[in-house]
């Protein structure tokens, strides 16, 4: 083997140009594939630095009518599970808390979680500094400790080593810093701090409010299925005990790494890995073509070796060793490509999105990724070398020994394998091109979705009022009223609105709907659900949503007056088809009746929505919450309004910070960044694939022209003119396209079917993908063939006839 490798090195250095081309092609393929694997490793395999992560699960409630649902549980549920479970070592509960960090310069909105002391036991992560929570800190009154994330410690406290024991203020309440977690740990994302949950006994016995998130560590040797079976039985106990609100619920247990990745990230990652592997395959085919040319020049040598008794396996090994060597060199160079592309991805990720991607910070080249790279390189070496090696080892020895004595030219058999390789490249490149075209067009279509009119002229921000200073609805509504009043009068503001959640803000609130005079839940249809959004009267003009019928909220609706609601066209279509909805009443499960006073135009709340959901708007004065979004429409750059907004808030409450300040356009862009990444990555991969396919066709045709020099000379001697030769060479390229493109089109249709669920605003049979891309590819291939074809026409017949 060592001799084979030594020989391979020697031969590679003999023709460094061809070797360099092969190394570069594989470097791009292996490098991009490595970077995609690195993303999968960071986001899917090890999103959190939790030891033995595959034993850590999340437990939630699941609606029997919707197996994909994953709801929080009640404190009573948690207690029942914690006391009864035998499949888990430890269970922990948490609840998100959006707090304002005050008392350390300007107030800063931060997100964290209230957790039981068992939380860190489940995670098994030792703090970087200090300690985690003690059992006694689970009790109310002993719960003023806080553990900081590494990120918050660095960002807000300059990574001060004296942080332990320091008192910080969270939403006006004092907490003592007892620990700092190591870098990369943020759970539930995007937690920046943890405080004890410390529920009272009365709260622990509550079985109505579903607000706790549960995680746990499985007993050693317990499988996920065993845990699922056990919690299903335990959920059955709860359903029997509380049939009214647990009757249609079961338990759902998932690995924590699956839950934290969300629904779309794993699928996006799979798409990009598949695309990168496709590209690597193209690179392998390309290198196989180059290897084939090298092998052709060694037919005589191999024949001599064969004649001297070399076993076939030995000959085969010689060629494959050369390919593996090329691939390993490609992998070494590919690591630079991977590092560069990962840096590019990291630097282009907005921080406000990165917070929601556990593992993103740890994106990079680690041992596992390097192992993947090495494995890929060996596989690529075998794939690219095996075909030429088999061809060579099967060629009859005698024929090759007399190779140079031939008196008739013949290339068809030699070209068959290379033609097959290049046609394959064309087919795979077309799959990538059409897939990328669909994703890019879909992504652009999302950008054009009629969410609102001119979102670039709207400034948005989020305000979370601390409960201890705004304990009831009246206090919240008073703050909101003053803020709206102040902002509406600010110079440059055309209109100002508040809402519980903006479209595309990744926050939704759904509720069961019962129409007056129709069966109520339970017993009603499970799909009787609508989104609920609290708004101020100016919401529609600010966001540019049309009010189709009835009247907008005046802003004077009081909690004691008749409760009024505006519904969307989709709501009317679902609940009042062919009926007049105005004046009709419904309730949202809490017993209060809402009367419909208007109908608004539909609006998509996220790009994955194929059609607008039914939506109910309620006046903020009758149903407001302490956490809300503010939207301001202006005629110019919305960011110029920021000083006035800050001042307006400061005038009302100087300790109140603003969060997520950005234009509505930016908010939409941030929410679609995942699909944007996929579209960009696919575009790059498709571009490289196109280049490699073109290079493949060029190499093949250039090689073919070189090999057919003598034949071209004969044809010229027989009276062939330039157009004849040009046609002859081009026909070869066209034949490759004629085989590769239909195969690619058929494969693209299959790929488009798989991609269908990720395509928004575009059909999977889009003409761009299935007409324009094949045409573009054909043109590129013809252009690739032009240089060799023109070179062929300049052949001197006299020289050609002497060519061997």
């Amino acid at each position, binding site marked *: 083997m060592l001799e084979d490798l030594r020989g391979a090195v020697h031969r590679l250095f003999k023709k460094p140009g061809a070797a360099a081309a092969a190394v570069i092609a594989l470097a791009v393929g292996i490098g991009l594939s490595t970077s995609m694997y690195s993303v999968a490793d960071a986001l899917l395999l090890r999103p959190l630095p939790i030891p033995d992560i595959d034993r850590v699960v999340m437990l939630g409630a699941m609606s029997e009518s919707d197996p994909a649902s994953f709801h929080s549980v009640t404190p009573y549920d948690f207690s029942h599970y914690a006391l009864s479970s035998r499949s888990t070592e430890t269970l922990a509960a948490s609840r998100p808390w959006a707090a304002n960090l005050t008392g350390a310069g300007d107030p800063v909105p931060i997100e964290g979680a209230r957790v039981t002391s068992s939380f860190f036991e489940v995670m098994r992560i030792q703090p970087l500094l200090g300690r985690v929570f003690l059992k006694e800190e689970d009790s109310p009154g002993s719960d003023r400790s806080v553990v900081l994330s590494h990120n918050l410690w660095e960002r807000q406290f300059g990574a001060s080593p004296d942080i332990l024991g320091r008192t910080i203020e969270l939403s006006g309440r004092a907490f003592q810093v007892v620990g700092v977690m190591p870098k990369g740990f943020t759970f539930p994302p995007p937690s920046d701090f943890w405080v004890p949950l410390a529920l009272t006994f009365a709260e622990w016995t509550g079985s109505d409010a579903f607000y706790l998130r549960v995680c746990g560590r499985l007993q050693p040797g317990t499988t996920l299925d065993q845990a699922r079976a056990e919690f299903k039985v335990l959920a059955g106990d709860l359903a029997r005990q509380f049939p009214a609100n647990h009757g249609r619920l079961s338990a759902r247990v998932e690995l924590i790494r699956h839950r934290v990745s969300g629904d779309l990230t794993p699928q996006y990652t799979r798409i990009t890995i598949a695309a990168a592997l496709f590209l690597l395959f193209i690179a392998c085919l390309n290198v196989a073509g180059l290897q084939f040319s090298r092998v052709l020049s060694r037919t005589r040598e191999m024949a001599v070796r064969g004649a001297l008794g070399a076993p076939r396996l030995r000959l085969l090994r010689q060629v494959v060793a050369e390919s593996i060597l090329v691939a390993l060199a490609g992998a070494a160079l590919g690591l630079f490509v991977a590092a560069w592309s990962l840096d590019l991805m990291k630097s282009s990720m907005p921080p406000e999105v990165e917070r929601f991607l556990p593992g993103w910070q740890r994106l990079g080249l680690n041992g596992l990724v390097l192992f993947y790279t090495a494995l890929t390189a060996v596989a690529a070496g075998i794939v690219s070398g095996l075909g030429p090696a088999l061809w060579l080892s099967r060629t009859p020895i005698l024929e090759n020994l007399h190779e140079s004595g031939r008196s008739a030219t013949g290339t068809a058999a030699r070209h068959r394998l290379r033609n097959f390789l290049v046609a394959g490249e064309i087919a795979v490149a077309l799959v990538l091109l059409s897939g990328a075209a669909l994703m890019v067009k879909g992504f652009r279509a999302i950008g054009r979705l009629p969410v609102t009119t001119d979102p670039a002229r709207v400034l948005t921000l989020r305000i979370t009022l601390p409960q201890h200073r705004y304990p009831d609805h009246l206090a919240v509504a008073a703050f909101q009223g003053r803020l709206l009043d102040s902002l509406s009068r600010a110079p440059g503001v055309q209109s100002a609105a508040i809402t519980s959640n903006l479209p595309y803000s990744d926050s939704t609130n759904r509720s069961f709907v019962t129409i007056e005079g129709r069966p109520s839940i339970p017993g009603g249809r499970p799909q009787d659900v609508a989104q609920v959004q609290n708004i101020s009267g100016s919401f529609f003009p600010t966001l540019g949503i049309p009010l189709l019928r009835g009247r907008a909220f005046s802003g004077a609706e009081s909690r004691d007056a008749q409760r009024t609601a505006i519904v969307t066209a989709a709501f009317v279509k679902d609940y009042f088809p062919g009926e007049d909805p105005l004046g009709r009443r419904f309730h949202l499960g809490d017993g209060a009746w809402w009367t419909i006073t208007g109908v608004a135009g539909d609006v998509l709340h996220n790009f994955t929505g194929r059609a607008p959901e039914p939506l109910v708007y309620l006046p903020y004065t009758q149903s407001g919450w302490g956490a809300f979004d503010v939207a301001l429409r202006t005629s110019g750059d919305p960011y110029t309004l920021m000083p006035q907004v800050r001042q307006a808030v400061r005038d009302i409450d100087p300790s109140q910070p603003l969060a997520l300040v950005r234009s509505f356009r930016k908010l939409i862009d941030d929410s679609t960044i995942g699909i944007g990444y996929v579209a960009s990555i696919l575009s790059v991969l498709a571009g490289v694939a196109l280049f490699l396919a073109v290079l493949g066709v060029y190499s093949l045709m250039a090689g073919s022209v070189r090999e057919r020099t003598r034949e071209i000379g004969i044809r010229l001697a027989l*009276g062939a003119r330039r157009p004849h030769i040009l046609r002859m060479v081009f026909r070869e390229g066209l034949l490759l396209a004629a085989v590769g493109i239909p195969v690619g089109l058929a494969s693209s249709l299959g790929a488009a079917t798989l991609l269908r669920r990720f395509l928004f605003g575009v059909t999977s049979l889009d003409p761009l993908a299935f007409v324009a891309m094949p045409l573009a590819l054909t043109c590129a291939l013809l252009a690739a063939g032009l240089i060799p074809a023109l070179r062929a026409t300049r052949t001197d017949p*006299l020289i050609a006839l002497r060519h061997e």
Partner: protein
Amino acid sequence: MSDQSMISLDGVTKVFTTEDVETHALAGIHLDIRKGEYVTIAGPSGCGKSTLLAILGLLDSPSSGAYTLNGQAVQNLKLGDRARIRNREIGFIFQAFNLIGDLTVYENVELPLTYRGMGSAERRKRVHEALERVGMSHRVKHYPSQLSGGQQQRVAVARALVGSPSILLADEPTGNLDSANGESVMELLSELHRSGATICMVTHDPRYALLAQRTIRLFDGRIVEESVGTVS
């Protein structure tokens, strides 16, 4: 140029220049070949035989001098015009046969006619006639690799004949053949000559040179002797 000359070379020279060295491959060649004549060109290696044949076949152009083919000056034609004349007026027979391996016997013979833009029915008729003449009509679907050297050269002769050229130019046509096959091919050329073909052949072999009506000996790019042979 005499009235009956099909080919006339007048003071043709060919000089190859490589770096600082000038090589005079042909120096002042005067040669006439009449219609129906069978001429051989003989001489030692490097005397300019192949260069002369290449100029006669319009594969190369002279450095100076005049070349007239069927009354037309052809020494300064453009590439396309030379190709057209090569296709219609000249039939090549090479030492290495130069058949195209990926084409069948039929397709190889048909090739010059396709460059002429001839209709397929006419092409078929002519190809079959040509293959009949060389005795290879039973091998139309074979590939060159399936034929012996002698058979390949017969196919090459058929390809040279198929376009009814004014002259057949043969460059050592027996050079790659054993003596039996070589004689068979020479017999074929003699038959063609008897039936009116004009042939100009380069050969080393004095036995075959004698088959021609006239033998021209070259030495250092000059015609040093012309002799009349005995045509069978």
